[in-house]
């Protein structure tokens, strides 16, 4: 008769952490960074239907990497939590800090108690009235929370991406500058020495390895625009995104007016002048 081997708790936690990290590192990265008029979310995501970035509440948004089904259920939970809180108190009483804490407790409990930890990493960001009031919380698979300043990169090769952002990012960027910076970081060759995201990978950075080309159609971009009243979340797509990403185009920020094209009021595509067929 075989007896189960004793496995020390340190080893159990380490195995779980390694398992979660591997899962997260397989996915494409998401970058969240502040700009002069708000917070921008840039995800490499060719899907138009399965979002990695989503609105939670008036000034709060959610971004995630990893397993879609796992972060989707947390996204829905966050919207339920925020809407219930806003309904029972007031819209101004819904804060990213409280939501991040609840998420942290939930993810932490799953990490220690469930069969399998969440293979996800999420960001809960709240745009303030001024850039100083912006809050970006990053939550990892084990339930730890970090209050990040200015920018976050998550997902595959996030360490090297964070390093690059740390060198390039500064407060007061325009939206166009911030988006171009994020795309440059996403497009740069991923392999780097000692990348924690890929512990076993051959880690030779090859300078001759050219950056990938990422165009607007492969990106999911959204902003929390601090100057809008009430709901500040807007998706940026189409011609507007192409103009913002183009270094030659003078468009530097999202338009202040909303577009009137029906269906999705939160979308800014720069195509409002073309009225849809009646």
């Amino acid at each position, binding site marked *: 008769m075989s007896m189960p081997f004793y496995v020390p708790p340190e080893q159990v936690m380490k195995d779980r952490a390694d398992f979660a990290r591997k899962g997260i590192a397989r996915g494409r990265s998401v970058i969240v960074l502040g700009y002069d008029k708000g917070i921008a979310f840039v995800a490499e995501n060719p899907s138009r239907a399965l979002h990695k970035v989503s609105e939670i509440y008036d000034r709060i948004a959610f971004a995630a990497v990893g397993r879609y089904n796992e972060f989707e259920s947390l996204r829905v939970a966050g919207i339920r939590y925020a809407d*219930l809180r806003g309904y*029972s108190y007031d819209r101004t009483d819904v804060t990213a800090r409280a939501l991040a804490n609840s998420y942290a407790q939930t993810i932490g409990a799953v990490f220690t108690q469930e069969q399998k930890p969440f293979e996800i990493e999420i960001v809960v960001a709240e745009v303030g009235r001024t850039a100083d009031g912006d809050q970006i919380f990053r939550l990892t698979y084990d339930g730890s929370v970090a209050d990040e300043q200015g920018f976050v990169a998550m997902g595959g090769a996030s360490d090297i991406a964070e390093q690059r952002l740390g060198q390039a990012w500064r407060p007061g960027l325009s939206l166009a500058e911030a988006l171009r910076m994020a795309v440059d970081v996403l497009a740069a060759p991923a392999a780097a020495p000692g990348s924690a995201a890929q512990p076993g990978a051959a880690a030779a950075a090859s300078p001759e390895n050219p950056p990938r080309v990422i165009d607007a159609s492969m990106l999911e971009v959204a902003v929390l625009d601090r100057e809008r009243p009430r709901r500040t979340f807007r998706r940026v797509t189409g011609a507007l995104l192409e103009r913002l990403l183009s270094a030659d185009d003078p468009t530097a920020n999202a338009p202040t007016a909303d577009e009137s094209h029906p*269906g999705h009021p939160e979308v800014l595509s720069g195509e409002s002048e073309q009225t849809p067929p009646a």
Partner: protein
Amino acid sequence: MSSPAHGGTRRLDDAYLATGSASFTEFVGSFRPEMLPSGRVLPSGSSIDAPHGTTIVALVHDSGVVMAGDRRATMGNIIANRDMEKVFAADDYSVVGIAGTAGIAIELVRLYQVELEHYEKIEGAIMSLEGKANRLASMIRGNLGLAMQGLTVVPLYAGYDLDGDAGRIYSYDVTGGCYVEGGHHSIGSGSLFARGALKKLWRPGLTETQAVNVALEALYDAADDDSATGGPDLGRQIWPTVAVIDRTGSRFVADDVLESQVRQIVEARRGNPGGAR
């Protein structure tokens, strides 16, 4: 368990994480039923005097729909409130006006606004106008128990149908019946008189300005003959609430525009109390 009432930072309750519908009302109904008007039980056989909201009118025009409401709330023979708002934006493309017990009605409207926004965020799409009208019907249906004890709420719903490219009006009965109205409709205690006015003044193809004018005339007629409906108050500068919904969304008509239109109506009725015809 973690709930907003406890403001806790404990883990999210399983109800938050459960796979479910995109309906906020259904979520609250299963998780915190006491927060819904329909989840409360009142002592039977008793009734209370609560403020009532009164007249709402809505009419279709060539680019959308207009909804207007007076500002008075009454409690028996007392005026409970002179400047109450009874027309609310439900979402970007629709408005809801309420008549009946004011407290319950306002609670239902708040719940309905969250319901629509909640769906929008979870699904990433706007509900169809028909779907929105049906959601409101089911919420009124849930209020039937309270209605039978005298706390009746009857809404009037108007929105822009983005698929059909037209403004539409939906009326409701107290049991949750939902009816599409052609052209125009009115609810509340002054609605008999407002409907008469609408019938005579409304015609297809009105412009937006004309439609706002017809709505103001109809409310004036309602206030003329119904003591529970408030007329425009020139002394206090209280004008009816008027919302306009078209392809670009819903918006409320500014006070200065209303003031000049109301003053014209009052002037035109001097020595001619029947008003426009």
